[in-house]
């Protein structure tokens, strides 16, 4: 499985550590919140909300350079809009990988 990375964030920061740290801090705050909302919406079986939360998490996945995982998230979001949970497990593996990675930042 591909690994999260900071290539995109480094490109944006262009050597400015304050920008880099700001963006990392936002990920560290926003990602766990979005993940929490995702699981909450899953418990409520609210497909519209689940899709919205996946949509938001999808952006974080792309920011962390996970291009294949982004495709998985996109497919999952599409499936959710059709009221299907197909690719849920694959999507949640991505969340686990990001969670572990964020702990190292």
């Amino acid at each position, binding site marked *: 499985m591909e690994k999260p990375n900071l290539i995109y964030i480094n490109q944006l920061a262009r050597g400015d550590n304050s920008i880099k740290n700001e963006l990392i801090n936002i990920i560290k705050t926003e990602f766990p919140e979005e993940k929490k909302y995702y699981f909450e919406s899953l418990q409520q079986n609210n497909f519209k909300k689940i899709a919205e939360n996946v*949509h938001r998490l999808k952006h974080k996945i792309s920011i962390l350079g996970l291009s294949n995982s982004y495709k998985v998230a996109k497919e999952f979001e599409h499936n959710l809009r059709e009221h299907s949970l197909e690719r849920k497990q694959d999507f949640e593996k991505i969340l686990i990988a990001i969670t572990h990675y964020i702990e190292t930042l």
Partner: protein
Amino acid sequence: MNCIIIDDEKMARSILKTLCNEIKLLTVIGEYSNAIEAIKFLNDNKVDLIFLDIHMPDFNGFDFVETLKYKTKVVLITSDDQLAIKAFKYLNIVDYLLKPLSLDSLEKSIEKIKMLDVDSNTGSKTLEKKKNHESDYIFVNINHRLIRLTINEINIIQSDKNYILITTDTETHKVNISLKKIQQRLPLKSFFRVHKSYIVNLNKIVDIEDRTIVIQKNVVPIGNKYWMNLKNRLNLI
């Protein structure tokens, strides 16, 4: 150019702000996590440009555009590549950028807005007028930007592994889509498959010789299997 950013994701707002800071022409005068706050601001303040996320809880980007009192220019910023056609039905939506954003895509967008300003100031035929004829265009995804191509300006489409090369009068675009799919989006009247790897705009053919087609300076082979169909299709005397 004064602008505001509306996106429920803090990360998205920060990225966009960082990129805007790199462009001298742009000054970010506000950022909002929801449309309601932004509307309150816009009721008392005029801005030149709004960067707007489409998918926001409660109030989506299109709802927001419809509530705008002044037709301020809007650039949509989204991870959703399925809404471009809908977006360009709104006259004031001038561009559509896909996340994750890059400085390059933002710079090109601003260039495009500057060009639109010049067009409208000189009274020339504006892009806004053309937007009413959406069938005159197709949108293609090139490096996370949805680029609008005028169908009449397309000369040749060539397959290139998983990509296609779209050649117009002035440039060639590499797009990640199959030849079959792009053909479905083009008018049958003008575009014809002449080879397993080529589609041509029949209106642009200069001449046909030895089973090859000449369009501008390009030579396109005609496949055996396609030759009879092409002959039937052309106005042969």
